[in-house]
């Protein structure tokens, strides 16, 4: 294995609040190769902040620091805004929860995908259109020639998320960050979307970070999982070992899910140990 | 008891207001008010507006006791005197002290503005919230009425009313109120429309709440902040309209020291004695500006989207 695609060391983010700064991320570290990494946590754990910090999409008031935040050869901490524009959408793509809000409602699907391709490749119109059609076919849209001319409101949720994936992956990014990509979708289309995402990422040899609150989903889909709580990584483990997790937070998170196979009288409500919030020193 | 250090009452009040959890409804309300107040005074411009308005009210209340002159007492030997140690803002064409007249005029102006707000605000709020919540024929009738009122410039409308009712401060107040409520009603209706389908209204309906109760206790509190902001911002316009009516001789009648009327009579002497027109003009401007700044600040404080 060569150099990691993404190297994050001691990443800290703080937002201004009524009383000075409040920490959203308190020193998280991980590396990512061409693999699928899951970041799991509940609301407020800092999982989305981590994704946005990598894209440098945090509000300007946020205070960001890290010992290292590198995308292969680029230092994301010091990169200029012009470099970042190139990276966002070009080398790093981000897929958000709800395609209805992430797509421009006034432009056709095709125009938006073509635009994102041409921004990053300098391709001509005809080539961009061909690539767009091919890409829509790659995300298993049956009739790309019809879908190209649709507006976002004419798409179903699952279709919208396929379009998002097509749009985000058309410039062949090295890293894809998917922030709750299936939470807004019905359970029967979730599987298809993840399948498509997996297929595309593997075909293009990209790295993937899947940010989710859904422990079973992440453990099923990813190779490795980071479990986050209170802005820190509680535990990092191989996805298939999730059922043998050792950290009490991961264990209780797992146990609080209602089981499908058998009945239980009472669900286990996680009890939080205040010591988890004290900073882990390395 | 003696080993507890004596804390000044002020300190403990602050603690009470800043306690992380309230333990009585009174404290909860006081805390909510306190947080809003903190946000308001954190906004410099709004604070400036508030201070100017407080000073103005104070001046209107106690000012007349501070000046040795009467606003109506003429002194033809001291006509058109420029600002001096004796007459800080000079005298007018009948020898009356302008500062005194401005102070007395502040009472009239503020009284008119507050009366208009007290009439137009509640009417607009009630009509708008009811129309927005109920919809149907009430909404149609009320909003067409609003359209009719809105199709005239407010000063023209006020002019027409005063012309019909006869000149005078009371009639000016009625006229301005009649032209001031429709925009407020429209605003309140827009707010009501956004909440009528909300879950908390539905939940209250399931508690057996009547339409009356829903409008009064649920819809109106939601509309109130934007109405307060709008009325505050409108104050400037109300004062200008009042001054405009006074200027045109349809509001306060001479010798009343109303600012608009003062401005109108000072107009003839503008080239020779500028202070006659400039002083009431500046007063009108200052008060309008103060209301606008305060209104902007209130918008930031009261808008729940900023929570």
């Amino acid at each position: 294995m060569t150099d990691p695609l993404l190297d994050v060391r001691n990443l800290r983010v703080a937002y201004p609040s009524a009383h000075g700064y409040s920490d959203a991320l308190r020193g998280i570290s991980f590396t990512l190769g061409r693999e699928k990494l899951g970041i799991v946590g509940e609301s407020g754990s800092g999982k989305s902040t981590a994704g946005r910090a990598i894209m440098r999409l945090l509000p300007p008031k946020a205070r960001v620091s890290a010992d290292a935040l590198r995308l292969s050869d680029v230092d994301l901490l010091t990169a200029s805004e012009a470099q970042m524009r190139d990276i966002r959408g070009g080398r790093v793509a981000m897929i958000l929860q709800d395609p209805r809000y992430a797509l421009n409602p006034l432009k056709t699907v095709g125009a938006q995908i073509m635009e994102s391709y041409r921004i990053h490749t300098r391709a001509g119109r005809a080539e961009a259109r061909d690539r767009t059609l091919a890409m829509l076919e790659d995300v298993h849209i049956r009739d790309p020639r019809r879908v190209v001319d649709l507006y976002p409101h004419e798409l179903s949720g699952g279709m919208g998320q396929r379009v998002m994936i097509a749009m985000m992956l058309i410039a062949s990014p090295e890293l894809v960050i998917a922030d709750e990509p299936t939470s807004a979708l019905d359970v029967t289309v979730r599987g298809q979307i993840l399948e498509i995402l997996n297929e595309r990422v593997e075909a293009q040899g990209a790295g993937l970070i899947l940010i989710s609150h859904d422990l079973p989903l992440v453990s099923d889909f990813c190779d490795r999982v980071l479990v986050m709580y209170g802005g820190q990584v509680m535990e990092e483990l191989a996805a298939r070992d999730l059922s043998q997790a050792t950290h009490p937070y991961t264990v209780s998170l797992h146990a609080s899910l209602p089981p499908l196979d058998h009945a239980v009288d009472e669900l286990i409500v996680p009890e939080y140990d205040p010591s988890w919030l004290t900073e882990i020193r390395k | 008891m003696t080993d507890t250090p004596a804390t000044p009452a002020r300190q403990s009040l602050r603690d009470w207001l800043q306690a992380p959890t309230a333990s009585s409804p009174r404290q909860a309300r006081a805390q909510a008010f306190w947080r809003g107040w903190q946000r308001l005074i954190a906004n410099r411009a709004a604070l400036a507006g508030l201070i100017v308005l407080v000073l103005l009210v104070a001046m209107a209340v106690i000012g007349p006791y501070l000046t040795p002159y009467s606003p109506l007492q003429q002194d033809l030997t001291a006509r058109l005197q420029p600002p001096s140690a004796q007459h800080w803002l000079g005298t007018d064409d009948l020898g009356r002290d302008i500062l005194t007249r401005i102070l007395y005029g502040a009472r009239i102006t503020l009284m008119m503005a507050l009366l208009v707000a007290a009439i137009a605000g509640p009417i607009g709020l009630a009509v708008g919230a009811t129309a927005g919540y109920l919809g149907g024929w009430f909404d149609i009738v009320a909003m067409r009425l609003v359209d009719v009122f809105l199709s005239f410039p407010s000063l023209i409308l006020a002019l027409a009313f005063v012309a019909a009712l006869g000149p005078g401060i009371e009639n000016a107040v009625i006229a301005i109120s009649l032209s001031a409520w429709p925009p407020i009603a429209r605003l309140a209706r827009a707010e009501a429309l956004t909440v009528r389908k909300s879950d908390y209204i539905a939940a209250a309906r399931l508690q057996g709440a009547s339409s009356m109760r829903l409008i009064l206790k649920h819809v109106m509190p939601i509309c109130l902040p934007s109405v307060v902001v709008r009325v505050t911002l409108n104050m400037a316009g109300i004062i200008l309209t009042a001054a405009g009516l006074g200027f045109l001789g349809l509001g306060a009648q001479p010798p009343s020291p109303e600012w608009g009327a003062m401005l109108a009579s000072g107009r003839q002497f503008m080239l020779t004695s500028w202070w006659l027109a400039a002083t009431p003009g500046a007063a009108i401007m200052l008060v309008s500006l103060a209301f606008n700044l305060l209104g902007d600040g209130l918008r930031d404080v009261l808008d729940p989207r900023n929570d």
Partner: protein
Amino acid sequence: MSAPSLEIADLSIAFGHGRARVQAVDRASFSVAPGDAFGIIGESGSGKSTILRAVTGLLDDYEGGVLIDGQMAPRPRARAFFKTVQMVFQDPYGSLHPRRMIRATLMEPLEIYRLDRRDDRIAQVLVDVGLAPEYAYRYPHQLSGGQRQRVAVARALLLEPRILLLDEPTSALDVSVQAGVLNVLNALRRARGLTYVMVSHDLRVIAHMCSRIAVMTQGRIVEEMSVEDLRAQRAQEQYTRTLIAASRAAVTAE
């Protein structure tokens, strides 16, 4: 055999007119015995929440029957109806009035029905849902999602209804918070003998809470089954099988 606590008979609801007409619910029927928990599972747009709104009368334009204890529910709903049937809404951030103190929100039904010992009742119901009585003196924005949903449950319980309609009560909450709220709901049902009708898209939640389950898609109840059949994956209809398979995929597939 007593009459079912709640019965829905041939309920149909359509939105819009002419070409834009959408049949949201199409001849749905089910009945729930007293003290039972009935679940309706379906995906977005299946019409499951629409049924609950029709039961409460929030949605008045329906065909068919809503029967409480064998009696046709009055249209429009009379006040007495709400002493029998209450509902908890999906979004805890939208179902509490943002500018009213929790105490005012909870005081409302007590005022409307002129009940006595108001402060005692509020304190008691807050304790029942697992909150300290001091929470009455907070505003909604000072509460977490789980706490808000507990307040919403408390509000629904104040009138001591026998039937509680639950519209995806935990879908906006984290799983750890969801566990607490579901535990409270289960404990309340046992302690007070309540009848539940719960709507959800989450098979796990429905299976945990309910003993009988209706599967809805495109406005129709395609299958009604017991929770044991659901757990054992004994489904008759293709759609139910797909739904169960998709919900289980994340657990079993390797």
